[in-house]
């Protein structure tokens, strides 16, 4: 028997599921099995309530108004900044810039830092497993500046080829921008090694934390990364808000990204003084409601316990990997030993799209396609994969439903 006092410390997946109203949904008459968490996660009731409470209780524009609701809204908004700072252990709230997501965070660095610091003949180093959002901004920057975009290849196991990394990085490298955890392969990259090497050569490092923020403990000071971008919606929060962490010394010396209200102190036609950090990068009225609710998502994760969530997800990954490998002709893409709870696979003579449609018939939501990482698919010479990604509320029974669905689908598709 579990003692009542230990309820708070035990990880009870069924109690957690109760917090997510969407998990009650039926899809085509069958209980929803949501395995598309690497695309976006579902939201707990506390996050949904926070949105409703803001709009029904204290909706107001922030930072400027003197009335009570403006003060309440500003306080709640800034509380999220404090919570986000603690979540990744940044040194100060000056280093926490709100964005609309990881994509905007990377674009902000490519434009604000890159356009100032990258010139002709310089090099930008990314990797073959980057999401398109961590390729396109650097491609454009290099094209504009006459710099060279270099790409670290991946191994057949879906890991970074670190020998190649050592050869590609040099004193010409101005910035290394790398995904902390791959969205299509699940691989956890050795970013500590990358950061140390880059710093020794005078380069800065940007981490795409879209996937890592929800699965790993993030301490940006211990990592010593220069920039770290993560979003709210993959970590049980609302869409449309994210955080760019940047070391204050770097943020201070960057070009402003977007101009407008909020980001200025004084505006004359011949002279503009910009606001202090982090506000100088937050032009215009921000996404107030979603930013406020984001705090509730971060608190939810922290209170549930990241380590407990992680061990539950590790269990799910091990179980799924074992069960999937029993499907005849199934091959897992991304077999690194250091993985988060993401499993990408292909099945002989079965197109991922067909599999995705048939799994949807069983209520199972997986992602199929190239997952916005076309170079990864090219590397493995496949059109795409089927990807199941697990979150804190998933169960091994749900994995059984998926695997049974795959077996049935394979039978009729072949």
């Amino acid at each position, binding site marked *: 028997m579990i003692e009542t006092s230990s309820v708070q410390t035990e990880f009870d997946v069924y109690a957690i599921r109760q917090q997510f109203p969407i998990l009650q949904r039926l899809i*085509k008459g069958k209980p929803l099995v949501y395995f598309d968490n690497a695309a976006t996660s579902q939201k707990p009731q506390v996050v949904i309530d926070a949105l409703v409470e803001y709009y029904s209780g204290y909706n107001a524009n922030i930072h400027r108004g003197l009335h009570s609701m403006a003060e309440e809204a500003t306080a709640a908004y800034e509380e999220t900044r404090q919570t986000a700072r603690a979540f990744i252990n940044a040194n100060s709230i000056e280093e926490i810039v709100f964005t609309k997501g990881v994509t905007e965070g990377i674009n902000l660095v490519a434009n604000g830092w890159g356009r100032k610091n990258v010139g002709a003949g310089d090099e930008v180093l990314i990797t073959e497993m980057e999401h398109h959002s961590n390729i396109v901004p650097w491609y454009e920057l290099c094209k504009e500046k006459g710099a060279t975009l270099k790409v670290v290849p991946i191994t057949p196991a879906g890991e970074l080829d670190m020998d190649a990394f050592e050869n590609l990085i040099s004193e010409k490298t101005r910035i290394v921008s790398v995904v902390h955890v791959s969205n299509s392969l699940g691989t956890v990259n050795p970013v500590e090694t990358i950061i140390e090497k880059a710093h020794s050569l005078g380069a800065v490092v940007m981490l795409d934390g879209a996937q890592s923020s929800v699965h790993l403990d993030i301490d940006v000071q211990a990592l010593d990364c220069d920039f770290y971008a993560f979003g709210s919606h993959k970590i049980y929060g609302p869409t449309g808000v994210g955080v760019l962490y940047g070391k204050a010394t770097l943020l201070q010396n960057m070009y402003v990204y977007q101009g407008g209200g909020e980001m200025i102190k004084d505006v004359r036609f011949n002279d503009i003084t910009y606001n202090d950090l982090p506000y100088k990068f937050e032009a215009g009225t921000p996404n107030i409601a979603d930013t406020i609710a984001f705090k509730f998502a971060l608190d939810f994760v922290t209170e549930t316990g990241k380590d407990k969530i992680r061990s539950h997800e590790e269990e799910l990954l091990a179980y799924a990997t074992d069960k999937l490998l029993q499907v005849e002709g199934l091959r897992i893409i991304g077999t690194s030993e250091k993985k988060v709870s993401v499993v990408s696979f292909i099945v002989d003579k079965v197109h991922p*799209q067909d599999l995705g449609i*048939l799994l949807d*018939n069983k209520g199972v939501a997986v992602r199929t*396609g190239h997952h916005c990482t076309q170079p990864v698919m090219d590397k493995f010479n496949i059109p795409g994969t089927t990807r199941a990604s697990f979150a804190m509320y998933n169960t091994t029974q749900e994995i059984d439903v998926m695997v049974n669905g795959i077996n049935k689908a394979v039978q*009729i598709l072949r």
Partner: protein
Amino acid sequence: MSETKPITDIEQEIVEEFALFDEWDDKYEYIIDLGKKLQVLDNHYKLDENKVKGCQSTVWLVADYRDDKVVFKADSDAVIVKGLISMLIRVLSDHTPDQIINAKLGFLEQIGMHSHLAQTRSNGLAAMLKQMKNYALAFKISKSSNAAKYGYGSPEAKGN
């Protein structure tokens, strides 16, 4: 000119066939079966210019124009899309450009498959349907000049 069944009649036939199925599984098994049976498109047609590219699956489409009727042939690397293609060909092929251009294709909604058209980024089906209508339009315009064939990469017939 030989008489062919009106498009709406063929649509109705398909709707009646699907009425036999209660379960989604059965509908899809039927579509998969159609996909497997669809006549294979010869490899020499599988050119980039005949590709209608979706985000996830690829569709190849060629069209012939004979005796004021458009004949379509198509293929895909994904079998469910292929089954849906097979139905679109059954409904639209062998009709005049005007009939094809004006076809409403309500049957897709009636059999519950219209969601495959809405997901424009996910599969080539919506793009293929648009391309079928573009071919019909191109044939209609070129009718007076007696052009006999399109669909082998002629840029006039490319809609997008």
